[in-house]
């Protein structure tokens, strides 16, 4: 079945930072992200299936945007896992942003397991278009 698709079934597991220990008995994955820019707005889409909007942490530190998502998945009671192709786990990823991001205008929303973060470039930094006059 050759379908025109680039969907990937695997998740990339996060490397444990040296000296750090996990405090939750869960795996941590690096979520897939798509980033695009339009006019002065940067949009970051992050795949975090299984994460509720309430369990997402977004922290802006200097020009680094840190995104964390905690899954609330519970194993179905009484059931045992008999066939497994994926593991459930939390998500963590950081993005280095341009310096001119307006910190007051960061918006985030969650739909179908995909987080959307919208960032605006601060007006003070926006490149001003200079009109070039033709001199007769």
């Amino acid at each position, binding site marked *: *079945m050759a*379908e*025109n*698709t*680039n*969907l*990937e*079934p*695997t998740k990339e597991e996060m490397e*444990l930072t040296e000296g750090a220990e996990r405090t939750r*008995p869960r*795996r941590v994955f690096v979520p*897939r*992200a*798509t*980033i*695009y*820019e*339009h*006019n002065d707005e*940067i949009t970051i*889409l992050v*795949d*975090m*299936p*299984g*994460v*509720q909007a309430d369990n997402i942490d977004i922290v802006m530190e200097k020009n680094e945007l840190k995104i964390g998502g905690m899954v609330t*998945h519970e*194993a*179905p009671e*009484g*059931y*045992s*896992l*008999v*066939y*497994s*192709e*994926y*593991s459930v786990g939390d998500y963590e990823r950081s993005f280095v942003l341009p310096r001119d991001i307006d910190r007051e205008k960061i918006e985030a929303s*969650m739909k*179908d*397991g*995909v987080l959307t973060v919208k960032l605006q470039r601060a007006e003070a930094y926006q490149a001003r278009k200079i009109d070039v006059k033709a001199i007769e």
Partner: protein
Amino acid sequence: MFRYYNLNDEMDRMRREMDRMFRSVSGAGLSTPGGYPAMNMWLDGDNVILTAELPGVARDEVDISIEGDTLTLSGERKPQELPEGATYHRRECGYGKFTRVIKLPYQINLDEVKARMHNGVLEVKLERAEADKPRKIKVLEG
């Protein structure tokens, strides 16, 4: 080098071992391993739960059909609609159509299939068909 002992790795190994045993016994499993989406199967007696992570797939873009002991899951993740003139900096979230065929351990009671999508995770709950359940045969005397 210090090797961090991961309990999850051990769990995974056990899981794989269970998969192997389970498949060799019942023949259940996925006919297209490695396809999208990755799936998990849970079992409790005559009940089966299938789960899959489908980020960005709307509920009405998922299609499930069952025939006997075979479940076909298909759907599509639509590409993001970008405003005109937008440029990508990074593009890791894939999109497109997908199909997976899953062989279940039992014939399924089609009246008792429950499927739901929650935060991009699909869960399908299935029950074994009454006719497929083993029956105890009473041995009569005489």
